[in-house]
């Protein structure tokens, strides 16, 4: 009881412990801010990374697999599946209106189905905007311009259907939607994009002025490398596609490398569309001598139709985790593969582990069924490791709080030596005396970590206004959207993390108080009373 009394009194009557408490405040706040910002960064990247991939992808790259419509129907019958859609993913070369050529990831999608499975439609950039983005205080974004309203509405509609009307006939033409960072756009420090639409760079380095707006008049040329159903590379195929819109997922690697085209366009380019199936052995165009000695061309016998193929079927779950969805997809795909045995890739094997754990075992002949986390595993684990490393470094730096508390408590124990002797003379045990200092350390730690938590919460929830203020008042811009891509500093305060950090803060104070507490406990009562 006297521990509580003395702790309360020491806490309110001494300046030194306030310094110790301040150290805990700063260390707690520092670690929590770093964790929240890095955690927010990770969450933002993960959310951005899953915008165009759905929850689960069933993938057989290169040659693709047939009968996908049937698989989509089977998947959509499952109550855990919200929607499923076919998709082709391949690589290509894109020639931009400016003459620049970029290497891109080409996704062939059915716009409606793709919109149902992914956040694609929300990611379309060119659309009418009622309110400016947070940093666009000067309303420089041309999407806000009432004069551009019609163009933006049309671009949004075009983006949703992956078409753009022919300027002469008004007939919808298949069109392309590109990542916002591929095109010739200029990104300002407020996160606003200006389309650079008046310049074309010639091969000799000179330039000419054009007066075209990419989303209304821009046309790109897409080159892809088709393969036949056996995986043999065929001649490069090209097509010109008008630009319907551009998208921004928030993940630079996606927005800088991905383009979307209608599925049937890409199927045609890659020769994955339905084709006549001919008898084996006959080669079209070859000349043979018939039984009458006449030379004639071989006309292969058509024996049916080779169905269209896709490389992916992507799925969006409903009320279940992506991991659970993966196993459901695997079970459905197994039925599908059994039905089309020999014509589609085999299903992966589900292995039951002790304790209810399951794992999908895939060999080289079986299809890949992966969650969006699996698809982004490399970059997620890289950011997680980076977060862990930064957190470790800052936590290590925060150990200074332990030594600061130790130094302050050591000096306080020296100052209070006589009091220790008095307490022992009144019957206080060694444990009781140690408890005075430990509870004092805990109190300082609790006060410090609570204040630190509050400080961190205040800073993290206002990190962008604080950053803006620093930019305006001090000319400091640490987070430049031109470099970091995100317009705002991402952050996320999570209660469990806050509890861990604050408990750590309180614990560090107790640890710091431990050695001085033991020193006080083992002071000889008589020597303590005679201490001068």
């Amino acid at each position: 009881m006297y521990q509580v009394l003395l702790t309360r009194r020491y806490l309110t009557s001494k300046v030194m412990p306030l310094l110790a408490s301040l150290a805990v405040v700063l260390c707690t706040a520092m670690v929590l801010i770093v964790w929240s910002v890095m955690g927010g960064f990770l969450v933002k990247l993960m959310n951005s990374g899953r915008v165009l991939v759905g929850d689960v992808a069933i993938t057989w790259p290169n040659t693709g697999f047939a009968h996908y419509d049937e698989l989509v129907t089977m998947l959509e019958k499952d109550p855990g599946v919200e929607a499923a859609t076919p998709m082709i993913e391949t690589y290509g070369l894109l020639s931009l209106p400016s003459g620049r050529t970029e290497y891109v990831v080409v996704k062939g999608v059915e716009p409606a189905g793709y919109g149902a499975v992914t956040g694609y439609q929300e990611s379309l950039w060119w659309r009418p905007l009622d309110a400016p983005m947070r940093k666009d205080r000067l309303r420089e974004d041309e999407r806000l311009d009432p004069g551009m309203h019609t163009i933006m509405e049309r671009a949004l509609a075009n983006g949703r259907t992956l078409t753009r009307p022919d300027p002469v006939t008004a007939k919808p033409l298949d069109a392309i939607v590109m990542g916002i960072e591929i095109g010739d756009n200029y990104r300002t420090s407020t996160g606003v994009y200006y389309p650079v639409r008046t310049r074309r760079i010639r091969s000799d380095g000179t330039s000419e002025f054009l007066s075209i707006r990419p989303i209304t008049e821009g046309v790109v040329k897409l080159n892809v490398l088709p393969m036949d159903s056996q995986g043999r590379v065929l001649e490069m195929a090209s097509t010109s596609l008008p630009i319907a819109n551009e998208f921004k997922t928030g993940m630079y690697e996606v927005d800088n490398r991905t383009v979307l085209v209608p599925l049937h366009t890409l199927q045609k380019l890659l020769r994955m569309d339905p084709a006549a199936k001919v008898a084996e052995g006959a080669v079209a165009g070859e000349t043979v001598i018939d039984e009458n000695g006449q030379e004639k061309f071989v006309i292969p016998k058509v024996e049916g139709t080779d169905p269209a193929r896709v490389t992916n079927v992507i799925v969006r779950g409903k009320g279940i985790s992506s991991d659970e969805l993966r196993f459901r997809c695997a079970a459905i795909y197994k039925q599908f593969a059994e039905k089309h045995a020999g014509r589609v890739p085999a299903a992966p094997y589900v292995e039951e582990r002790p304790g209810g754990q399951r794992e999908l075992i895939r060999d080289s002949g079986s299809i890949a069924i992966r969650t969006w986390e699996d698809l982004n595993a490399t970059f997620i684990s890289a950011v997680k490791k980076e977060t862990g490393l930064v957190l470790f470094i800052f936590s290590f730096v925060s150990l200074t709080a332990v030594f600061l508390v130790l130094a302050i408590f050591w000096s306080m124990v020296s100052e209070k030596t006589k009091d220790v002797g008095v307490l022992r003379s009144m019957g206080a045990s060694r444990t009781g005396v140690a408890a005075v200092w430990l509870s004092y350390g805990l109190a300082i730690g609790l006060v410090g970590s609570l204040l630190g938590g509050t400080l961190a919460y205040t800073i993290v929830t206002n990190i962008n206004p604080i950053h803006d203020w620093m930019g305006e008042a001090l000319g400091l811009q640490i987070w430049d959207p031109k470099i970091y891509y995100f317009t705002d500093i991402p952050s996320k305060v999570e209660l469990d993390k806050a509890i861990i950090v604050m408990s750590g803060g309180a614990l560090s104070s107790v640890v710091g108080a431990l050695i001085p507490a033991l020193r006080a406990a083992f002071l000889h009562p008589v020597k303590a009373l005679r201490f001068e």
Partner: protein
Amino acid sequence: MATPIIQVTNLYKTYRLGKVDVPVLRGATLSVEEGETVAILGASGSGKSTLLHLMGGLDRADRPGQARRRTKPEVCDACGGTLTASKDDKCPACGTSYLYGPVPMDAGGVLFRGQVLSMMSAGALDQYRGRSVGFVFQFYHLLPELTVLQNVLAGAMAGLGPIAYLTSRRSAVARARELLARVGLGHRLSHRPSQLSGGERQRVAIARGLVNTPALLLADEPTGNLDRKTGGTILDLLHEIRRETRQSMVIVTHDEHTAQRADRTISLVDGRVQR
């Protein structure tokens, strides 16, 4: 026949100052009866405070064996006479006693109501200090951050332990208030020690020493830091309270006037009691 509350037998204590051993108590022996006030009179450095600390369980005496010799000396330290080889441990010429050989279990120590302090566990010794004895120091030793009332209550908290204190909190507070009123500080409960005079601080220290109703009050120069008039008042107070409560009291002092007011006076010279 009166019963002794505390018995000190053949007590030795040596302090080490650097590389030098300084013997402070050299076989001190005394006994205090229940309800008796004993003054221990002695010059500075005679071992009075050390004796009080040992009686109060604040320190542990040296084992008597440490003052003994391993083997019997051949020549008497006092008279130079030859010691006989017999088992007698006295010098035949001058009668000086020699302690040597193995230490008997009951040799020397402090007995409180029949309990040997040196045999007590650390916890039992804490309890002894908290409940059976009360200390009053020359320099008051109040806790400066606490108020007058809290200083007295701290004695109850430390002495009783958390559970016992919580169960008897009301009575402890009432007792502290009553004691402070008794020592004339009922109106200064919320004051800090720094706001009190020397005499007032000593009154608070007396109240603190008595808050757990100890059987024995050990006062170490209670008036040593006060002027004669204030010191006299403090002594009056101590004796009044002792008469009321019938507690035993040991007062250590170098002042003969203070000693004279006790039931009995014992002189301590060179670490030994002289009657």
